[in-house]
C-alpha cells in the first residue's frame, strides 16, 4: 500500500459508513418495513440516504482541510491469490467525494420525492404492498453506487458497477406484471441487464489485462506504474482503455449499447431520475475520469472515446426530436448528454466532463421528477374525469373500445402550465438549463465541453454543437407540447398539481440547476481546482482554457435558434387533438426515422437477438437433443450395441452356443434318467452301498 494509508483516522474512518448506512436502511425496511406505515418506511429510507449525504459532506470538508490529499481506508481482506491481492478498501479523494455528494444529495431529494410519488403510484398500479420494496431497492442502489465511486480498486468499482446494474434491473422491472403484454417492463429490465453485461465483459477483460500487465488492480499502484508500462508496451494500455470503453458504452448508454436506456423508462419515474439520468449512467464517465492517468497515455483510445461520445450525443439528440412519450424524450436527451460527457472525458477534459456530470445530475433529475409530477397530474386528471363519467353513465363498460389511456403521451397533454404552476416553472428552469441558456448551470458546463472540443477535436466539436442545437429544439418542443397551448385530452383538462412532498424537492433541484454553474465559473474554476487534487496526484496537467466568447456565442445562439424553431412549429400554432406532428410534413421519412429510433432496435433484433434465440433453439433442439442425445447416443451408440447384441443373440448364441448347450443338456438328461433308477429311496439300500464301498476300499488297500 502507498503512504496515504498512514493518514487514515478521524473523520475518514467514517468512510465505510457511506456504504453501510444505506445498507442498514435497506435491511431495516426489509425486515420490519412490513409493519410500518408508508411514511415511516419512506422516511427511514430517505434518512439513510440523507445521512449518507451528511457523511459525504463531512468527508469532503475533511478532505478540503488536508488540501485534497487522497485517503485510502482499508476495510477487509478480499481476494488474495498468489500475486493477485485485492481488498475491500475505500478511497476518499476529491473525485469520489464529488460523486458521493451528487449521488447522496440528488438521491436524498429523489427519495423524499418518491415518498409522495410512490404513494400514488402504488395505488394506480394496484399493489400498495410494493411501496416498501421500492425503498429497499432504492437504498440498495445508493449503497451500490457508493461502492462504485468509493472503491479503491477496479475490482471493487466493478462490484458497484454490476450492483447498480442489478438495482437498475430490479427497478425497471418494478411493476413486473405491467407493460406491453404484461411482460414489457420485465423484458425491459432483462434488456438493461444483459446489454450492461456485454459492457461488463469489456470491464472484465480490461481488468484481466490490467492485472497481468500491472500485477495489481488498485488505482494508486496502477496509475503509479502506468507511465513506465506506457514507455515499454503502450499497446497493452491501449487495449485496456478500449476494453474499458466497452464497459462505458454499456453503463453510460453510448453507441452501440445505448439501446437499453430508453426502454429503462419502464421503471417508476423517480428511478429514471436517479438511476437512469443522474447517477448510475454517469458511472462510465466517472470510470474514464478515474482512469485519466491511463487514458492520457494513449491518445488513440482517447480519440475513439471522444468520437463515440460525440456520435452518441448527436445521434440520440436526433431521436429525441421524434419522440412523443415525455419520458422517452428525456431518456434520449440523457443518452445525448452522456455523449457530451463521454466526449469530454475522452478528449481529456476531465474537469469539464465531471462538471457536466454534476450539473446534468441536477437538471436532468429535475426534469425527470417534474415529468413524473406531470404524469401523476395527468393520472389524477384521468381519475377525476373517469369518476365523473362513472357517475353519469353507470352501465358503461370499462373503456373496452378505446385504447388504454397513456398519461405519458405528450399528444394527450397541453396547457398544463395553468393547472400545475410549480411543476411548470421548475420544468422551464430544467429545460433552459439543458438547452444551455446562460446563466443556468447547463450553459457553463456544456460550454466548457464545447470550448475544449473546439481546441482538441474539431469533428467532435461539430457533432456536439449540432447536438446542442437539437437539444434546445426538442426541449422547446416538449415544453410547448406539454405545458402550453390547449389541453388535448380530458385528463389534461382536469390535471392537478402534486403535493408538497413532491414539489419541494423539485424546487430545491431547480435552484441547484439554476445556480449550479457557480461551481465552476470560467474565472475561479473552483470545481476544477477541487478535482485537480486527484488528477495531479498522478502528474496530470489540468490545463484550463480561458473563456472563449465565440464558442459561447455560437452555442447560445444555436440554443436560442433551436427554441425559436420549436416555437415556430409548436408554439405559434399549438398542436390540436389528433393532429399530425408538423415536423413530419417538413422532414418526411427523416422524421419517421427519428420517431422509430432509426430502427436500431429492429436491426439489433435482426442481427443479434433473433439469431441468438434461433441458434440456441437449433442447438438445444436439433444439435443437442435430436442429433446428439437421440441420434448419436440412442441410435448410434445404443442402437449399434443393440444390433451387436442381437447378432450375438440370434446368430452366435441361438445358432451355435445354444445348440451345444441343448445337446449337452439332453444328453445329461438321458443319462440321468437311467441313473435315477439307482435312487431307490430306501435308506437301507444306501447303507448297503455304503457298506459295499467300505468293503471295496479296505479290499483295495489290502490288495494294493
Amino acid at each position: 500500500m502507498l503512504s496515504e494509508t498512514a493518514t487514515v483516522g478521524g473523520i475518514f474512518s467514517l468512510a465505510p459508513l457511506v456504504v453501510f448506512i444505506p445498507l442498514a436502511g435497506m435491511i431495516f425496511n426489509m425486515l420490519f418495513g412490513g409493519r410500518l406505515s408508508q411514511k415511516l418506511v419512506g422516511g427511514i429510507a430517505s434518512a439513510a440516504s440523507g445521512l449518507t449525504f451528511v457523511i459525504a459532506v463531512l468527508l469532503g470538508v475533511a478532505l478540503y482541510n488536508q488540501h485534497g490529499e487522497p485517503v485510502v481506508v482499508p476495510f477487509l481482506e478480499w481476494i488474495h491469490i498468489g500475486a493477485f491481492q485485492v481488498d475491500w478498501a475505500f478511497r476518499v479523494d476529491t473525485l469520489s467525494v464529488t460523486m458521493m455528494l451528487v449521488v447522496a444529495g440528488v438521491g436524498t431529494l429523489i427519495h423524499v420525492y418518491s415518498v409522495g410519488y410512490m404513494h400514488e403510484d402504488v395505488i394506480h398500479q394496484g399493489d400498495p404492498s410494493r411501496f416498501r420494496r421500492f425503498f429497499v431497492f432504492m437504498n440498495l442502489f445508493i449503497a451500490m453506487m457508493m461502492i462504485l465511486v468509493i472503491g479503491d480498486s477496479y475490482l471493487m468499482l466493478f462490484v458497484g458497477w454490476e450492483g447498480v446494474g442489478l438495482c437498475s434491473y430490479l427497478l425497471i422491472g418494478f411493476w413486473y406484471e405491467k407493460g406491453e403484454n404484461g411482460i414489457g417492463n420485465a423484458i425491459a429490465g432483462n434488456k438493461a441487464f444483459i446489454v450492461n453485461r456485454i459492457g461488463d465483459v469489456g470491464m472484465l477483460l480490461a481488468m484481466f489485462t490490467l492485472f497481468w500487465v500491472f500485477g495489481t488492480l488498485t488505482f494508486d499502484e496502477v496509475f503509479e506504474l502506468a507511465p513506465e508500462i506506457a514507455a515499454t508496451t503502450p499497446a497493452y494500455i491501449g487495449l485496456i482503455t478500449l476494453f474499458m470503453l466497452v464497459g462505458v458504452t454499456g453503463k453510460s448508454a453510448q453507441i452501440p449499447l445505448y439501446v437499453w436506456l430508453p426502454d429503462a423508462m419502464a421503471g417508476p419515474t423517480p428511478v429514471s431520475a436517479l438511476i437512469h439520468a443522474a447517477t448510475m449512467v454517469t458511472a462510465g464517465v466517472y470510470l474514464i475520469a478515474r482512469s485519466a492517468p491511463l487514458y492520457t497515455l494513449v491518445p488513440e483510445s482517447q480519440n475513439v472515446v471522444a468520437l463515440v461520445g460525440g456520435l452518441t450525443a448527436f445521434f440520440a439528440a436526433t431521436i429525441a426530436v421524434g419522440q412523443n412519450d415525455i419520458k422517452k424524450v428525456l431518456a434520449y436527451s440523457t443518452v445525448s448528454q452522456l455523449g457530451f460527457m463521454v466526449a469530454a472525458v475522452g478528449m481529456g477534459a476531465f474537469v469539464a466532463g465531471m462538471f457536466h456530470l454534476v450539473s446534468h445530475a441536477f437538471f436532468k433529475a429535475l426534469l425527470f421528477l417534474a415529468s413524473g409530477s406531470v404524469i401523476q397530474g395527468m393520472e389524477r386528471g384521468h381519475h377525476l374525469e373517469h369518476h365523473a363519467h362513472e357517475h353519469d353513465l353507470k352501465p358503461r363498460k370499462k373503456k373496452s373500445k378505446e385504447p388504454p389511456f397513456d398519461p405519458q403521451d405528450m399528444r394527450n397533454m397541453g396547457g398544463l402550465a395553468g393547472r400545475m404552476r410549480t411543476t411548470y416553472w421548475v420544468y422551464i428552469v430544467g429545460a433552459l438549463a439543458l438547452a444551455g441558456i446562460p446563466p443556468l448551470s447547463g450553459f457553463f458546463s456544456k460550454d466548457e465541453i464545447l470550448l475544449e472540443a473546439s481546441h482538441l477535436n474539431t469533428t467532435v466539436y461539430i457533432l456536439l454543437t449540432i447536438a446542442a442545437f437539437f437539444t434546445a429544439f426538442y426541449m422547446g418542443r416538449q415544453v410547448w407540447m406539454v405545458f402550453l397551448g390547449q389541453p388535448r385530452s380530458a385528463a389534461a383538462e382536469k390535471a392537478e398539481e402534486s403535493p408538497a412532498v413532491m414539489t419541494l424537492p423539485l424546487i430545491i433541484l431547480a435552484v441547484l440547476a439554476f445556480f449550479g454553474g457557480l461551481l465552476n465559473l470560467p474565472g475561479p474554476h473552483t470545481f476544477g481546482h477541487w478535482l485537480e487534487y486527484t488528477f495531479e496526484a498522478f502528474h496530470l496537467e489540468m490545463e484550463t482554457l480561458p473563456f472563449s466568447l465565440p464558442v459561447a456565442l455560437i452555442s447560445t445562439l444555436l440554443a436560442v435558434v433551436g427554441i425559436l424553431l420549436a416555437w415556430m412549429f409548436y408554439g405559434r400554432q399549438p398542436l390540436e387533438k389528433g393532429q399530425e406532428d408538423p415536423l413530419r410534413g417538413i422532414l418526411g421519412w427523416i422524421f419517421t426515422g427519428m420517431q422509430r429510433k432509426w430502427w436500431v432496435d429492429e436491426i439489433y433484433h435482426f442481427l443479434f437477438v433473433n439469431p441468438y434465440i434461433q441458434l440456441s433453439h437449433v442447438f438445444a433442439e436439433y444439435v443437442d437433443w435430436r442429433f446428439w442425445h437421440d441420434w448419436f447416443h440412442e441410435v448410434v451408440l445404443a442402437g449399434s450395441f443393440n444390433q451387436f447384441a442381437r447378432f450375438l443373440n440370434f446368430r452366435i448364441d441361438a445358432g451355435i452356443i445354444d445348440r451345444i448347450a441343448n445337446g449337452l443338456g439332453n444328453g445329461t438328461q438321458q443319462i440321468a434318467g437311467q441313473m435315477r433308477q439307482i435312487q431307490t429311496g430306501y435308506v437301507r439300500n444306501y447303507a448297503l452301498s455304503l457298506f459295499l464301498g467300505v468293503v471295496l476300499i479296505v479290499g483295495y488297500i489290502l490288495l494294493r
Partner: protein
Amino acid sequence: MMVPINYFVALSGILFILGAVGVLVRRNLIVMFMSVELMLNAANLAFVAYARHYLSMDGQVFVFFVIAVAAAEVAVGLSMVIAIFRTRQNINVDDLNSLKG
C-alpha cells in the same frame, strides 16, 4: 500277563461288523439305531484300547466326545423317529422311499 492289544481290536472289529450287519438287515428304525450305537461302542473300545497301548489320554478324551455326540445324535434321531411315526404311524424303513428318483 496282560491281554494283548490285538484281542481288543479283534473284539472291536467283530462288534463293529455285527452292528453294521444289524443296520443292514433290520427294518425296525429303532433297532437300526441301536445297531449304530453298537458300532460306535465298538469304535470306542478300540479308542480306549489304544489309549492304554500308547499311554495317551487322547483316546479316552475322544471316547468322551463320542459319548456326548452320541447322546445328541440319539436325541435328535429318536425325535425324528417320533416325528415319522406320528405322520405315518409306522417305523418300517422300507415304507419310506419318498426320495426315490
